[in-house]
């Protein structure tokens, strides 16, 4: 699995990763491989280090030890292959800018220094807004968007990055059922075209329905693999620790009635 050639074909390989803010490690000896063309969920309680894992893959936080490769090379060499949907709260939505401008920012990386977005970028951005059902909001101030609309705009921006691998930090946070379905449909389309999606997800109930692969995280990796194999009651309990008072009844049987695990958080 770890041979040179295999690594080349692996969208993301994280090896012996440890990350600490100040002194406390928030990720400890994390070792995961993320396979191509799959929808991959990162699941774990609040503070488990899910956002930090994504940020360390994207070079946004310094690694204490270990390394990360994207298709066998460093992130730096491969960043044009990567799209990112940060947690919605990570930007100031009162910033004086429009929906279209935000989506165009997804293309700044490829535009490079000094060059401004032109007609081509504008068209691509509009197309991406179209895909997420937000075309009519192109000239809206972002401060006037609802939470779900903001999330769609972030998704459109990631689409504009035209990546091979997408990292999405809680794309369903604060969106209604309709928007969630729309977002899932777009994700599936991306998967059909061979892209890899890595998604921080909070609703355990929908993991089997949406995802092919799951990484259960709580500072360490509790389990990682195909959902039907590793997403077990035992693993979930281990990830969520003693705080798991309700357990999904029939985890591992996607058709079974699952109870929400969100009510368990702290």
């Amino acid at each position: 699995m770890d041979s040179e050639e295999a690594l080349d074909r692996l969208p993301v390989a994280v090896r012996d990763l440890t990350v600490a803010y100040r002194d406390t490690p928030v990720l400890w000896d994390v070792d995961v491989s993320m396979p191509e063309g799959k929808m991959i969920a990162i699941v774990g309680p609040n503070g488990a280090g899910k956002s930090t894992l994504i940020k360390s893959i994207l070079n946004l936080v310094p690694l204490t030890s270990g390394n990360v490769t994207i298709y066998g090379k460093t992130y730096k060499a491969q960043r044009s292959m990567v799209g990112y949907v940060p947690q919605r709260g990570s930007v100031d939505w009162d910033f004086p800018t429009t929906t279209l401008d935000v989506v165009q920012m997804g293309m700044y990386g490829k535009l490079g220094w000094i060059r401004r977005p032109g007609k081509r970028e504008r068209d691509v951005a509009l197309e991406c807004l179209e895909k997420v059902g937000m075309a009519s909001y192109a000239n809206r101030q972002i401060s006037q968007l609802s939470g779900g609309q903001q999330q769609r705009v972030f998704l459109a921006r990631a689409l504009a990055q035209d990546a091979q691998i997408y990292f999405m930090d809680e794309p369903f946070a604060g969106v209604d059922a309709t928007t969630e379905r729309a977002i899932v449909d777009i994700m599936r389309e991306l998967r059909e075209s061979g892209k890899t999606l890595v998604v921080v997800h909070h609703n355990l109930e929908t993991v089997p329905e949406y995802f092919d692969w799951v990484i259960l995280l709580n500072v360490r990796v509790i389990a990682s693999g195909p959902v039907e194999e590793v997403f077990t009651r035992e693993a979930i309990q281990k990830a969520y620790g003693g705080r798991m008072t309700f357990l999904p009844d029939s985890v591992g049987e996607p058709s079974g009635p699952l109870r929400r695990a969100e009510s368990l958080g702290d």
Partner: protein
Amino acid sequence: MLEFFTEPLSFPFMQRAMLEIIIVGALCGLVGSFVVLRGLAFIGDALAHAVFPGVVLSYAAGHNIMLGASVFGLLTALGIGLISRSKRLSHDSAIGVIFAAFFALGVVLLSRQTGFRQDLGSLLFGNILGVSRQDVLITFVVGLVIVAVVFLLLKELTLVAFDTNLAHSTGYPVFTLDIILLLLVSTTVVVSLQTVGNLLILALLVTPAATARLLTDRLNTMFALSVAIAIISGVIGLYISFHWSVAAGGAIVLTATVLFAVALVFAPQHGLLSQQLHRRQGKHHVHHFHAEGEDLEVH
């Protein structure tokens, strides 16, 4: 009536002052917009204070005060960049402590000079009526450079201001861009010192931009308004200073503050008045917006 405006301009020192304040207003309005967008008022203040010893030293040595100020401005911009490297640019007591100390150093240095009482006033509060042709020329040339840098890096500076993570993950050197912004701010401070002085420069940097921010939600409009408001404040302040013999720096800043207060109350969307109206009449509206807004937080 017309004389009110034309008479001052018959004096060469007023012509120079007008030119100077127009250039400085444009610069402060433009660069100040980024200070406001990034929430860097505190750091702007630290920068302004920290250049003071440089001002005093070059003054004592008989050089143009911009010389010493720019040396200290450069050092300070780099220093602040390094201090906040780990934490991103933000409020930081270390910055406050160090650069208040710089200011104290300037005061001590100045007290060693003879005749320091008169000079203290002009250094702290500006001396726009005393600017020379050379000063105006320097301000203009440096100003052109600042405007060019902002214009060239507009996309990058905006990206970093809105979403640092995206900037970083798409390969822009965020730290370098932060340093560039700090250098732009400190250079603007340096060339603006003579207009309103060390203590009030922050107001010229922040107040017009904050006013513009209240008036619009469009970035380019904000830049334009900020520049216009800063220039208008400067020009009105100068006239007030001339006709009523009050300190120009103070008059300029107070004019800017009055414009800010007016905007705070009457601004179409963010103004206190329209928000009140919205709350009363618009109750309907607000509810409706939320209903279609899908704004259901799931915890």
